[in-house]
């Protein structure tokens, strides 16, 4: 009997806002889906599109990228730069066949613990409906089973 599908979600968050928001969700004893793996980074500007690709390849079913609201960046403009990058990267992923629903972007401040909890619940539910992200995972399996690689 196979186990029911539990989505794996990787969240790349900035330490100053969204990570603090997640912290607030925790200290406020808010309950949210345990499917999320949080990766804390100094700033959304530090999030290379490679991170998102790697997460999807290595088994993530959805990816969340989240940081400070515009104007709130600890480094003044990291999130503005990130926003431009995401716009382009999102179009690229969509053009090459990754469903847009798999990658979410949000602004969550340190005060928005409730928003964080809600968003994680929402993404988990949506991903559960979408099912596992098999496209990259199957290609990954091919590599692992072929010794010539």
């Amino acid at each position, binding site marked *: 009997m196979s186990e029911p599908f539990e989505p794996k979600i990787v969240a790349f968050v900035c330490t100053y806002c969204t990570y603090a928001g997640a912290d607030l969700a925790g200290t406020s004893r808010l309950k949210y889906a345990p499917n999320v793996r949080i990766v804390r980074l100094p700033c959304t500007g530090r999030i290379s*599109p490679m991170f998102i690709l790697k997460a999807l390849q290595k088994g993530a079913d959805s990816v969340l990228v989240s940081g400070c609201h515009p104007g709130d960046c600890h480094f003044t403009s990291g999130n503005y730069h990130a926003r*431009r990058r995401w716009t382009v990267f999102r*179009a690229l992923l969509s*053009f*090459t066949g990754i469903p*847009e629903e798999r990658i979410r972007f949000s602004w969550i401040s340190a005060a928005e613990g409730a928003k964080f909890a809600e968003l994680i619940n929402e993404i988990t539910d949506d991903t559960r409906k979408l099912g596992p992200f098999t496209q990259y995972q199957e290609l990954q399996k091919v590599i692992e089973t072929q010794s010539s690689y």
Partner: protein
Amino acid sequence: MGIQEQYRSEAAALLSSGEVKLVIGFGAGSTADRRRPLFARTPEEAQKFVLDAACIANLSTYLLAEGLLSDGKKVGVFLKPDGIRSVNILISEAQLKPEQVVILGYAIENGKDVAALEGRNISDFSIGEKIRNLTPPPHVIEAAEKIEAMSAEERFEYWKEEFSKCIKCYACRQVCPMCYCRRCIVDVNQPQWVSTSSHTLGNFEWNLVRAFHLAGRCASCGACDRACPVNIPLRLVNYRMGKEVRSAFDYVAGENSDQKPVLASFKQDDPETFIL
């Protein structure tokens, strides 16, 4: 006097006066319809230049050859409008000093006639308006629209098919004037971001990274398309990226040499409809 003779003597004059140390142009290729880059350092060598409708390569790639411009001397180069556009991009990214490049401009009209372009310095070519109105060849637009009309699964299958052909020769990188990183991300092995063997997943990685790094920087010269030994339509991805940058940020790469690179700048009111 035909344009070939005119440009031969101009290149020779530039070299003999000592204004430039080198002229990069085209010479005869291995077959009648192919041209190969020719690097002339003396007026005599300049007599070997060929200029006709087969001269389609974007020679601006060679301007960034390591050490070429580090002595501060000038270099002459034969460029079509797409080459001039790439020089604009390279200047805006601080890779070139405008005064070091002497441009022998030409345009290929109707695929057979070659016309001279006025001007020698990059500032002489006001190509901004033209680039804004420039459309890539109809087959590129058509193919890109066909892909956009597909469902996500079909798109994935399409690119899986295409990228599975990739042999990771990196010819697309070598030929591209915009791929000038001293250490390309695929050559980095700690951490190894992009797998070195040419399996489909790693090919996806490489081609996506390449496209992302060229977003808003592509001069759409089509060199990657021509260089690809397995005929992956690389240009389609670049075209789609250019379209996105234009619609989202009203940015067209290489319009002029003063623009700020699109992903290295921002506006506070950039669109963010997709952000929750």
